[in-house]
């Protein structure tokens, strides 16, 4: 079975390192970027099977990313948002824009793996 591709958009190197490691161990082909511009360029060329993105990113926020994927690229791929505690309003906005799920920081890698698998199984 082909490995699923996953785009991890997270500018916090610390969190990204851990998630990158665990997602790769979990059997995913992970592309990571902490730069919103790079994320946009990547998406314009290739659509992964799933996106995991932080809400607050420089240059191109998680919200803009959802809007871009849903409205410009017209893609329905699952998007999981990583949000800080206390950002409930952003989470609601993210769902309204078309996010499929969210996970709060500090992120448990095991929980994220379960959520990623669940979203992929839905599709």
């Amino acid at each position, binding site marked *: 079975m082909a490995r699923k591709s996953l785009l991890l958009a997270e500018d*916090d190197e610390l969190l990204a*390192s851990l998630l990158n*490691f*665990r997602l790769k161990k979990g059997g995913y082909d992970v592309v990571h970027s902490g730069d919103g511009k790079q994320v946009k360029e990547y998406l314009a060329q290739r659509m992964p099977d799933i996106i995991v993105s932080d809400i*607050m990113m420089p240059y191109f926020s998680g919200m803009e990313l959802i809007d871009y994927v849903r409205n410009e690229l017209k893609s329905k791929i699952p998007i999981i948002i990583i949000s800080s505690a206390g950002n409930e309003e952003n989470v609601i906005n993210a769902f309204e824009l078309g996010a499929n799920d969210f996970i709060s920081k*500090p992120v448990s890698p095991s929980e994220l793996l379960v959520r990623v698998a669940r979203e992929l199984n839905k599709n």
Partner: protein
Amino acid sequence: MKPKNLLDHLCEMESQLGDFSYENFTMSEAEEVKQAFLAFKNTLFEKINPTNPKNADYNYLKSFNETERALLDFDMQTYDAVITHYESYTNVLKSLKIETPMKSEKYNSIPSDRVTISPLQSTATVDLYPLLEDCMGEMELLEELIKLYEKNALEFIGHAKIHLKNEDYDRLRLSAHKIKAGLAMLKTNDLYSIVLQIEQTCKTDKDHKHLQFLFNCFLNEFPLVQNALQLSYSELKK
């Protein structure tokens, strides 16, 4: 005690607290005085609140006319802040085993030159085992994460210093927000708590003095956390 006497006492407290400053408090001292104040305030308000059925002794307040009641409410609000400072100060003095002037029958001036704040005695402990589990036992990854953590903290210190100097509270808030997740990830709760307060203060009253105090707390705590991290890492490596 009649309301006027109480207000006189509070007024006198205010004048005694001219030299009071929380700037040199440690985080734990600040938290302690805050909690002590809240308890004190609640007790005081319970006692003076005429609607409290327990306070039969204060039924005479019912006889106050509207103006007197309004004046009393106003004064109590005004002195709320004074009580905060007074109780904080008293508890710190107590914790430092310095006899407070309030012990004497008459308030004397507070000898501010006798007040010395103890050096920061952190209880910084870190348990890296849960993170090592997240790293699936990979010590190299754990080491990399610790390095990134320290790098982020140092970046935060640099940025925060500049933002405080420029009184740029929006950027300070963003810097605090950015580092927050990493602090939580390594379960360095003291630093997390400080940064959370910095973020909140930047969002709300933007009190420069308090932000500087919190930043100093971070500066004091960070080396202790670094040591605790190294200690925990060494333990895991054995």
